[in-house]
């Protein structure tokens, strides 16, 4: 079982790296599987409306956990695979340095889960975004591998996070998974009830301590023949380590009444209340600021985001869209939306613009923060609206026929008029789709003359074909047409 785990997780890790390397241009089904197979995003997506992919991911993960515990953590979770690498190094470089059983912090873990869930329910995804393992791993991978538009803040945070995780794994094994990870906590709750559990057979056990030393989740107490199965990540290191065939899965008899259960529930209730109080408190502090935006503009969201509200309450900042975007226009800032919405990606039109015929980002989002949008629909989704500052514009104020903005606008929401006989841009915000092409290409410095302001809610843009463009520049028609070849040519 352990070799199988290693092979599967290596394959999975490789796919993950390919996905987040950003080297792939279009994401096929196999690669789209990477983010979509993730438990927490799929679970969050299912809350908003189940899709086949999200249902399958949740169903399979829960089913596996119901039978065998947290195998997800060893097979599918990219952060788990990442940690395992450093744990492997620890074994490699310091084989004497064995893991030792520790009691665990299940109560604390549940508080974290409650905090993540409650903040999420309150529309604050940050706790989830920082702790949810897939998002954390993929965001870091995207920051390093994919040359995507991340801000320095996100980059350095990712550096910190990766170093921290590497060190934590090296010294403390799967401590993160058993104290901080919200997905781990959910799976731990299920594992408590799983049909098969890792058990030590007291008759066969020679107390050699090999299993305990091999357990990176530090959940095996060989002296008391005890396994805290809620913390077991299903890596099967112990099974391979045992030379006496004394440890393995065993079907659990369900008859015993467990009075610790009631205690746990009680504890959970207390912690939940505490976490709720904490959440409300923090929300109170920050809400004051974020209720009155000091910025004039709303950030522009990627297509499929629907509204700031929908986006903010679904996006866990996993940066799958950041990686998938061939234009690298989706960037991540530390706190574009304020501290409560850490690292959520937004459209960064100083880096690039959104391609008219592209919908890649909407295909890969695993949480439903970006909903699927066909290319046809996408061409009329209004992400934002164009604004023109004529005083900044080279054509209007400098008398040079720049109009590179009109050139790039796919709907001719920016079109050309003549101003003092010089080509100059004019806008029709109604048919603007907010792609940012005009803003990106505008050469005016230091301030752009044309820009896109975001919308609280993405709407449908007007029809560019039917649009009336007042004063549009028309070419002088050809005069003295010579029809010297029977009218076939105008010269």
């Amino acid at each position, binding site marked *: 079982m352990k070799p199988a785990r290693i092979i599967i997780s290596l394959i999975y890790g490789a796919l993950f790296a390919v996905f987040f390397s950003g080297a792939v241009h279009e994401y096929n089904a196999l690669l789209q599987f990477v983010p979509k197979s993730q438990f927490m995003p799929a679970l969050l997506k299912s809350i908003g409306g189940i899709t086949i992919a999200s249902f399958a991911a949740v169903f399979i993960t829960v089913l596996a956990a119901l039978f065998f515990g947290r195998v997800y953590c060893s097979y599918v979770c990219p952060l788990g695979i990442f940690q395992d690498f450093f744990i492997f190094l620890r074994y490699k470089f310091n084989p004497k340095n064995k893991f030792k059983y520790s009691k665990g912090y299940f109560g604390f873990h549940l508080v974290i889960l409650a905090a993540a869930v409650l903040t999420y329910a309150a529309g604050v995804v940050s706790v989830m975004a920082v702790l949810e393992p897939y998002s954390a791993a993929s965001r870091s991978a995207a920051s390093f591998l994919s040359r995507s538009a991340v801000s320095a803040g996100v980059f350095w945070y990712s550096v910190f996070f990766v170093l921290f995780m590497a060190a934590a794994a090296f010294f403390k094994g799967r401590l993160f998974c058993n104290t901080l990870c919200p997905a781990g906590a959910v799976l731990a709750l299920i594992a408590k009830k799983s049909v098969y559990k890792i058990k030590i057979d007291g008759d066969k056990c020679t107390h050699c301590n090999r299993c305990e030393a091999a357990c990176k989740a530090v959940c095996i107490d060989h002296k008391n023949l005890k396994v805290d199965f809620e913390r077991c990540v299903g890596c099967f290191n112990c099974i391979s380590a045992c030379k006496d065939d004394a440890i393995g899965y065993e079907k659990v008899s369900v008859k015993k009444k467990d009075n610790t259960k009631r205690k746990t529930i009680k504890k959970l209730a207390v912690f939940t209340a505490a976490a709720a109080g904490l959440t409300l408190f923090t929300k109170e502090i920050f809400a004051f600021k974020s209720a009155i935006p000091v910025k004039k503009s709303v950030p522009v969201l990627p297509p499929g985001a629907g509204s700031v509200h929908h986006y903010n309450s679904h996006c866990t900042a996993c940066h799958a869209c950041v990686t998938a975007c061939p234009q690298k226009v989706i960037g991540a800032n530390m706190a574009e939306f304020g501290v409560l919405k850490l690292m959520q990606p937004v459209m960064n039109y100083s880096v690039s613009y959104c*391609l008219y015929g592209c919908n890649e980002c909407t295909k890969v989002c695993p949480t439903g923060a970006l909903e699927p949008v066909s290319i046809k629909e996408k061409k009329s989704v209004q992400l934002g609206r164009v604004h023109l500052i004529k005083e900044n514009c080279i054509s209007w104020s400098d008398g040079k026929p720049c109009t590179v903005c009109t050139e790039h606008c796919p709907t001719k929401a920016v079109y050309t008029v003549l101003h003092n006989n010089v080509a100059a841009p004019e806008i029709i915000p109604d048919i603007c789709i907010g792609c940012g092409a005009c803003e990106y290409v505008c*050469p005016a410095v230091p301030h752009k003359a044309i820009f896109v302001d975001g919308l609280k809610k993405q709407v449908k843009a007007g029809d560019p074909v039917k649009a009336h463009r007042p004063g549009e520049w028309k070419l002088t028609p*050809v005069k003295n047409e010579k029809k*010297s070849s029977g009218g076939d*040519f105008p010269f």
Partner: protein
Amino acid sequence: MNRREFIKKSIQAAAAAGAYTMLPASKLFGAAAEGKTPPHLVAVKNSTPAKMYAAALAAMGGISQFVRRGQTVVVKPNIGWDVTPELGGNTNPQLVEAVVKSCVDAGAKKVYVFDHTCDNWKKTYKTSGIEDAAKKAGALVVSAASESDYVNVKVPGGKTLKETKVHKLAVESDVFINVPVLKNHGSSGLTIAMKNLMGIVWNRWSWHATGLHQCIADFAAYRKPDLNIVDCYRVMKANGPRGVSKEDVVLMKTLIMSKDMVAADAASAKIAGADPEGIEYIKIADAKGIGTMNLDSINIRRITL
């Protein structure tokens, strides 16, 4: 020195003497060999892009007039936008295919195809159909999206554009064939042959900020293409250069071929129904002696298939 080189040298000499604009090449050297001299410009109508190209090429004396065995060739279509061929935003892929094929048949060592695109190059190469078509015909389709592929060049006689960065393949290749598409353009009026050369330039966007028309005309003196083949098969008449919908496009089934970019632009402008006089860069280039916009003064072959 073969005749072609002789003519070329003589034209340069004539231009230097300031006589060129008054006495176009065909008049200077054409009289003696009337009938055999390739026309200054060929216009073909009413067939597929490939057939019109073949007819025009034949009228020009065949591909051997332009490409010889062992030479490297750059074929430069317009691949600016991520749009399908029906929208007329890029050069027709069938034409690109035919041009590449003729160069390969002529024994060209290598035929390169590229463009410094506006939209994402991987997407435009693919969506335009040009990448597949050119590869099929035997071309090497290469990227022009990284600055390291460009070299600094001086622009002779440039008024606004004195130097710029040009793709090194365009600088180094033996033969340069310009294959623009004719379409409406919100900044320059029309984009045709001269403007298509912005696609071999790195800092193309700075032209907009410093004076687009003057830069286009200035750059035209840098290296005149050995041949210009203007795709007027589908012509975008409005909302250029990107186009909004098929409604902007008119099927004109025409092709213009000339060694003279200015003449090619003037003739193509008329195909689009626009007066070349109304297009600033054509006028400047004509005045600079890059070529002639006076279509009455040149030898034109008109072919209706």
